[in-house]
């Protein structure tokens, strides 16, 4: 099994500080092609490609653009979500470090397609060191005349996991606390400052120039029925070769963690970061796709020596800390789970705790306002399903 570098095709090949090296590799050809078409036709092409959002939610990209394009307003925005805060994810960092030009080209095409004159790149505070390379790339693209119709501004986050959630991110750009908004309305009709807005993940936008250049048919030729194209994975934890790997969607988890990243004696793999699925070794053959498991592509490997209950406890502590606090199911639910899991990690669990965890999970999944609270119970539920013995052993006998 080998990698298929579509999104990453320029990474390690071009000089991220020199636009000439990008132009040598068909750089901005896709934008030129798009500018000759009506915006609607660009959107049709993206729709036909089947491209879905790479930030975790998997919403059809073309549909998002179509809604924003049809919204009646003179002012529209494109936001690139570079607030890569999911635990175990670093693919966007790798992309920004190595190929900022493809991202800028993707943003420029998005802006043209929906009729936006202004775009923001929301960069997480931890990636401050990438500002320089990104700013240089924007300046060079502007000088070459590729940003005539679109102004791209970088906004920096200030350290908040929840700001990777699109509505909290918009509040943060508006200068507020990064708290989640009630929806509807959704961003394509009412987003940044109430204007039609599309928010796309870095990796989603990286796919745009590739699709415009090679066509929707080519893109649809890769992947599964509902998951077209490739996915960039960030692999870390108990592996020999941690790093960024790009695979055609539908590839097997086993190929990624054992074949490419060199993992041995695997006990479990968490796919999708802090709120991701926990996959036991026996299910390592699971394909990676939107139909099965994917998230934003964080893959954290635990070997046989790891204590799964402790991992889940630590993950829940993280989620409780990063909950924005706006809605009660998430704010209180994560805290309650921390308390219970903390007791289990010390061997002081109670029989009835399992039922309480299940009830809490139901409420949080049903009633939380955003993905953080809705997905926070997933690692707890998965570990109860696949590693129930580890919990039972810690039920206090006294």
């Amino acid at each position, binding site marked *: 099994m080998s990698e298929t570098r579509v999104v990453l095709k320029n990474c390690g090949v071009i000089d991220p500080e020199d636009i000439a090296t990008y132009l040598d590799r068909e750089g901005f050809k896709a934008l030129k092609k798009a500018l000759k078409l009506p915006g609607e036709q660009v959107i049709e092409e993206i729709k036909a490609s089947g491209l879905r959002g790479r930030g975790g939610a998997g919403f059809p990209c073309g549909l998002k653009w179509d809604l924003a394009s049809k919204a009646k307003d003179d002012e529209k925005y494109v936001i690139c979500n570079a607030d890569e*805060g999911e*635990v175990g994810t670093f693919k966007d960092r790798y992309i920004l470090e190595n190929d900022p030009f493809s991202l800028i080209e993707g943003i420029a095409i998005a802006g043209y397609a929906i009729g936006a004159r202004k775009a923001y790149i929301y960069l997480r505070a931890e990636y401050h*060191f990438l500002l320089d390379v990104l700013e240089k790339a924007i300046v060079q693209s502007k000088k070459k005349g590729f940003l005539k119709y679109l102004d791209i501004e970088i906004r920096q986050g*200030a350290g908040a996991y929840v700001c990777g959630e699109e509505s909290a991110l918009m509040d943060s750009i508006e200068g507020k606390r990064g708290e989640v908004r009630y929806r509807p309305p959704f961003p394509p009709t009412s987003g940044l400052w109430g204007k039609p807005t599309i928010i796309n993940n870095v990796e989603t936008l990286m796919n745009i120039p590739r699709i415009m250049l090679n066509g929707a048919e080519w893109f649809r030729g890769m992947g599964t029925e509902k998951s077209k194209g490739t996915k960039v994975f960030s692999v870390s934890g108990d592996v020999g070769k941690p790093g960024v790997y790009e695979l055609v969607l539908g590839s097997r988890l086993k190929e990624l963690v054992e074949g490419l990243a060199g993992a041995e004696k695997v006990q479990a793999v968490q796919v999708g970061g802090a709120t991701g699925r926990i996959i036991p070794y026996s299910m390592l053959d699971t394909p990676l796709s939107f139909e099965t498991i994917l998230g934003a592509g964080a893959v954290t490997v635990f070997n046989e020596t790891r204590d799964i209950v402790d991992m889940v406890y630590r993950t829940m502590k993280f989620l409780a800390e990063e909950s924005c606090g706006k809605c009660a199911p998430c704010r209180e639910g994560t805290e309650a789970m921390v308390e219970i899991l903390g007791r289990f990690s010390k061997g002081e669990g109670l029989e009835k705790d399992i039922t309480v965890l299940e009830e809490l999970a139901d409420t949080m999944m049903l009633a939380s306002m955003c993905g953080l609270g809705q997905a926070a119970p997933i690692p707890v539920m998965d570990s109860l399903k696949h590693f129930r013995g580890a919990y039972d052993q810690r039920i206090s006998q006294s």
Partner: protein
Amino acid sequence: MNKIGEGISPQSQEKKDLLVLLERAQSRSGYLSQETVAELAESLGLSISEVYGVASFYSFLSIKPQGRNVIRICKSIPCYLKNAQTIIDGVRKEIGIRPGETTADGRFSFQLTNCIGACDRAPAMMVNNDVHGDLTPEKISKILKAYK
């Protein structure tokens, strides 16, 4: 080169610029004092509690005085799996303070932080805006020497 918010002048600043202005004030004076918060509230026509609400929401903004250099060690799972605790202990030993504290000479503040996106180089930490990865306890002393 850091042009974020460069177009914002004292005359043109608006409520929507609050986060940018807080980030800027923090990089100027190291933290957001009560005076800074009150001045910003006044000039933007916001209440002090609104400005304080934003200033206290984000982990990279501080409403307490900070050392000249801020050490942030990642405590998330990928770093934890690679023995981040030995780095936390190593830094503690090196500068003599615990997470959450600032050295008496004001040279370092020490914090634990959530995933910084350097899991491929775990265990990792940030000192100010610099990321240091593939850490071992032996490397700490040399790294910190560069920060005065």
